């Protein structure tokens, strides 16, 4: 599944970051690398963007960009 499908409050483990170019590089730089665990925090009032928690900080990104991130759901 992809990150945009992850339910609120659920955990996921990144498998791969797809897409290309600078945005992808940015996502990798921000710590969205394979095997990292992310916690879906909330959706913005209009359903987009979403905010996630990883590596000790909170990050926001759009559903469109989140759909580039392949994850598997895990339970903690």
């Amino acid at each position, binding site marked *: 599944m992809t990150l945009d499908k992850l339910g609120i409050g659920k955990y996921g483990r990144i498998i*791969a*970051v797809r897409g290309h170019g*600078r*945005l*992808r*590089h*940015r*996502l*990798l*730089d*921000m*710590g969205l*690398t*394979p095997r*990292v665990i992310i916690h879906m*925090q*909330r*959706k*913005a*009032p*209009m*359903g*987009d*963007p979403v*905010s996630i*928690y990883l*590596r*000790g*900080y*909170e*990050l*926001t*990104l*759009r559903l*469109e*960009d989140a759909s580039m991130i392949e994850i598997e759901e895990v339970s903690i």
Partner: protein
Amino acid sequence: MILALAGNQNSGKTTLFNQLTGSNQRVGNFPGVTVDVKEGIYRADKSIKIVDLPGIYSLSPYSSEEILTRDFLINKHPDGIINIIDGTSLERGLYLSMQLLLLNIPMVIAINMMDEVYANGIVIKTDVLSEFLKVPIIPISANKNEGTTDLMQAITGLVSNRCSPPKQDFCSGAVHRTLHATAHILEDHAQRANVPASFAAVKIIEGDEPMMKDLALGKNEKDMIEHGIVEMENELVLDRMAAIADMRYQYIEDICKKAVVRPKVDKHHAKTIKIDNILTHKILGIPIFLSIMFFIFWLTFGVIGSFLSDLLSGAIDALAIIVSKGLTSFGINPVVESLVIDGVFAGVGSVLSFVPTIIVLFFLLSLLEDSGYMARVAFIMDKLLRKIGLSGKSIVPMLIGFGCTVPAIMATRTLTSDRDKKMTVFLTPFMSCSAKLPIYAVFAMAFFTQYRALVMIAMYLIGILLAVVAALISKKFVFKGNPIPFVMELPNYRLPTVKNTMLLLWEKTKDFITRAFTIIFIASIVIWFLNKFDIRFNVVQDSQDSILAVIGSLIAPVFTPLGFGNWMASTALITGFMAKEAVVSTFAVLLSTGMENMSVPLATVFSPVSAFSFLLFTLLYTPCVAAVAAVKRELGTKSMFVVVLLQTGLAYTIALVFYQLAMFLG
């Protein structure tokens, strides 16, 4: 000795910079407050220069202010680097450190916000980290000035012994082999370009274009490197970018496992979640934001600000009366008395009396920036802004624009695409800046006494509404394409510190008062002079005969269709281009009145309808000189003229349509 401060956005670089140099640079709690390279001198040793750089997450820059940082670090070769890491998000900070370590420049890592780290129950064994990274690691709390002396001792020691971080390998296996091979191939190119080979190798593998250009590799070398990279990709089943990022984070995770103990629950973040459950609530989030903005303006105009300003203007008027009586009793020449009272007191006093209002507005806006709410506003408004062709990040410059357009235009540097940046710069002048506030206040007082606050808030709303319309039109015809992706850190909420807030208010007050006594003072005297004498430099009895009236009357007909075709209004608009608050001081001088009794003579110049038309025009017409200069710096001369002409043309059209409609409808 030049020391550079480098680190992630919002990791506290500017706070440390202020502590080390004793300056008062603006700090705030959202990513990207600093958008420019700033220099200062270390307090304890004047031979050390400290450079504050905009925050970065990696040496592969993303937006224009991040490019400044990269260029400084790579091309200007500072003598030492102080790498600041937010202790609460250590891993992401170390990711940057691993790149900085390759630059072959003496470096110390400062782990900042240790007070929060302790409060959160996180344990960071700095000695263990230091053993792995082979650079000194100093825990500090920049906002409490703890650990900063140790930090400076460590880095100056390294710099004077020229101790660069020792070369070491962070990786093994395929990435390691490729890195080494690449470094060997480009070694002499790197030497010629004056960059460390190992750093160049990583950048080339990542596909970094500026580095490609700097090294000027031959085709043969490029092919050899490419071949190595493809082999690595095949072996790891990861592409080059991911492979490098993964290698770094893997190393960081390994050392963090040994050096960091995190509690199960992040206490500080748990608090933030609780606040966010309300402030970014699914249904209530946007209404809460709008209420906060409304509340800010209501407090500024309706309650505190106007009360304080009324007090102050009363005091200034009383002082003017005393001085006037004194001058009369000395038997001073009436023209000289007029110079002091109608020129200096009326002009400077009219602007000074608004200091409290503007300070209140800045105070409230600074709370948005310092608490961490600003980033949330970007978060909740992103989708709405996308509908008009912008991204959530554009809201930050626009909110700053309610204070002053100049820093707002600077703040657009954090936007990563030219399209978004340009569009935001064009829209920012629609956000009515604080210097226009006196104009609204004076006119609302004179013509719409009962609906004072309402008229002022209406001005802001009209500005915002027109910005939305302008955005929709330009999205359709000029700025086609998509808004930038929105990837942004949401910092934890933090209580704004009293010291910071006071410093900011002090700076703003000082700035505003300085302007009153310089630009406004000179303008007032010039206006007074031109208003008091005729072309033959004789004192006029009726200001209708003055030099100013003659000049003003030449321009005035242009504004006749808008309802304010008199020479006073046109003069005020021209001085308003120098600084918006000069519109009010000009009227004060021309009508030779203090603030308190300005309403009566003003009513002889305007009717309520033409007054509103004048307000619409001042809301929208060209930004002041300083803001125009800022546009030129960010976008160039052509865009500057476009902004000036577009805003003035729009102001003219809107005021024209309003006035003619109002006249037609009676």
